[in-house]
């Protein structure tokens, strides 16, 4: 807020300086979002209605959690395409643990039928332990897939893009195979509450997302791991010689990405009240798009949780407004693409300006 005040007190003559300040500000993407909304406000006054804001925010939380996970990996100069399959697989496993009944007509062909899944539901059907065990297993699956990715990238030195593309294919297929394409329902009420419930006036999803965002922020900016993460992303060779356990740092980044994807999977599954083998399979470009819009570099070493937050907010508001404008669906794609392009251009202008004023050599 103080930053905005400072800007507002600037004199008219210093518009140029102010413009530069805004462009270079950490909060630039946020300003851009606000500006965008203000421009559109006359056309869609509903955008600021409490219901819409609530709606937009409820869409934000799961995506935010997943995107933050991706940020860790992007900082190591990697990419994690397997997040969507983490969501799907953890969704199925969580449901298999927690469901209270399963329809044999639908699920009796599942490889899990008979020992993990029966007509009476899953392993912890009806038990009070269902929720904690289910959540634990879901998170564990995310971490496990992340570890596989990380190990392949850091130890086997395989390229991240292809590793995670393959694990994405693999685990997505496993999720579909395990459930024989069926969604698994009858999840405990306590689980669905995570996705749609409130504590007081505050949605539980918000609390989870904020906890994850704040911890991720602290982890990146204040801890040994965070410093080493950036060092690894910027110059892995120099980092290794300086005693940074680069392989472990990278593996941890993928594990965190998997964990965040699993939490995102929990929130989405809870919201949809089902275990879905195809959960999130179209979400990938949103996740990476939000990161890139926020200013996280695909080349590694550059990024902050705050930027991801802004990127996600921008992305969600963009879709929301395009929906509210009732554009034809094919126009939505065109406009969305254009706005992303524009944000990218501004980002380029920004980094050039930043380079010029930081005194870096050209």
């Amino acid at each position, binding site marked *: 807020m103080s930053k905005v005040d400072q800007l507002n007190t600037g004199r008219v003559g210093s518009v140029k300086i102010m413009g530069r300040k805004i462009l270079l500000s950490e909060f630039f993407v946020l300003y851009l979002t606000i*500006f*965008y909304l203000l*421009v*559109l406000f*006359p*056309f*869609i*006054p*509903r955008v600021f*209605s409490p*219901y*819409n804001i609530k*709606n937009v925010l*409820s*869409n934000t939380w799961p995506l935010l959690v997943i995107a933050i996970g991706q940020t860790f990996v992007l900082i190591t100069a990697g990419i994690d395409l397997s997040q969507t399959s983490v969501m799907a697989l953890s969704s199925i496993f969580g449901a298999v643990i927690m469901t209270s009944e399963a329809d044999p007509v639908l699920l009796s062909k599942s490889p899990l039928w008979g020992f993990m899944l029966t007509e009476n539901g899953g392993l912890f059907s009806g038990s009070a332990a269902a929720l904690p065990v289910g959540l634990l297993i879901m998170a564990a699956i995310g971490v496990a897939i992340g570890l596989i990715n990380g190990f392949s990238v850091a130890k086997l030195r395989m390229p991240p893009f292809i590793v995670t593309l393959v694990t994405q294919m693999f685990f997505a297929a496993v999720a*579909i195979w395990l459930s*024989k*394409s*069926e*969604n698994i*329902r009858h999840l405990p009420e306590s689980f669905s509450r995570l996705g749609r419930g409130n504590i007081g006036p505050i949605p539980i999803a918000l609390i989870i997302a904020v906890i994850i965002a704040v911890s991720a922020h602290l982890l990146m900016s204040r801890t040994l791991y965070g410093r080493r993460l950036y060092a690894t992303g910027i110059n892995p060779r120099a980092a290794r010689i300086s005693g940074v356990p680069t392989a472990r740092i990278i593996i941890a980044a993928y594990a965190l990405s998997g964990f965040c994807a699993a939490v995102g999977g929990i929130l*989405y599954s809870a*919201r*949809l*009240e*089902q275990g*879905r*083998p*195809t959960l*999130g*399979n*179209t*979400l990938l470009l949103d996740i990476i798009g939000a990161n890139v819009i926020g200013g996280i570099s695909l080349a590694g070493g550059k990024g902050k949780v705050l930027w991801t937050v802004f990127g996600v907010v921008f992305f969600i508001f963009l*879709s*929301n*407004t*395009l*929906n*509210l*404008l*009732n*554009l*034809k*669906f*094919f*126009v*939505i794609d065109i*406009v969305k693409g*254009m*706005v992303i392009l*524009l944000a990218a*251009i*501004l980002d380029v*202008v920004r980094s050039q300006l930043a380079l010029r004023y930081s005194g870096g050599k050209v």
Partner: protein
Amino acid sequence: MKKFLIFAIVTALIAPAAFANGGSDNGSGETTIAFCFQDLETEFWVAGHSAITETLAAQGIKVIEKNANEDANRQLEQVKDVIVQGVDGVIIIPQDGESAVTIAKECNSAGVPIGVFNRPPADKSADALVVVANNEAIAEQAVEYIAQEAMKLGRKVTPAIMVGDLGDPNAVGRRKGFYNVIDKYPDLWTGAPIEIPTKWDSNTALANLQSAMQANPDIDFLFTSSDFLYPVIKSVLAPLGKWQKIGDPGHILLAGLDGDKTACGLQKDGYVDATGVQDVFTEAQMLLDAMLAAIEKGEGTPNEWLYDDGFALTQANMGEREMDMWGCKLLAGK
């Protein structure tokens, strides 16, 4: 450069507004219905889409269209968005039955009537107007006809099925219907059916069908989980000399599901034996009538299940039922 940039920014930001369906405020007495569908990738969905939008438009009702691109979550978000806009009713083609329940509940709590088209909610815990076509049953009817035809041949038949995307419940339902009949007549077949994955993608279908025909040259019954694959089937079978009319010794028994224009034409020409039909036009009409009635009465959470059992259009019943297949109507209309 700088001026250009500012200009570009402002233009681009205002551009969406320019595309807007001007004055989208719904405070007036005009009835608005949101139509949220999951994709328009096959003729069936396109026909359903145009049936609904055109019927509504003809009655002077404003339609807001949303495409979820096969993403259940995005659909949920879109429905929330249209509720914010204060629409009078929501019609969805859900991605699957489970997500339909969740979305219907969202509408229930907002007091907006919801109609679910073609894919039924997985249970009845939410109130909704539902038009159901039973993929499994329809597929079963079409394949049953083939089984009867096969028996007449007096020999064993080698069946094959082109399976859709295993993430899509329609594909899974159709595969089940197919297997129900296969399992019913175990002695009719030479062995277990050959499964050909298509992922609902023509190129994949082409490659795998070619491989399957090469690996199993004796395939003489082919069931496609969707009619949209017929051009692919033709381009594979024709060079093998197996794209023959019924009655020709080289004919492969062919059945499909949807009932689109291509299928109708092929059935008329005597290439296709049977087609499972879900009547998209009737379904649309049934749903719209119920929806408009509910809006008229001011009901917020109407709850009614309407059934389209579909049928199989076969070479045997072509005469009487041809015009019940929507694809044939489109074909005739052209």
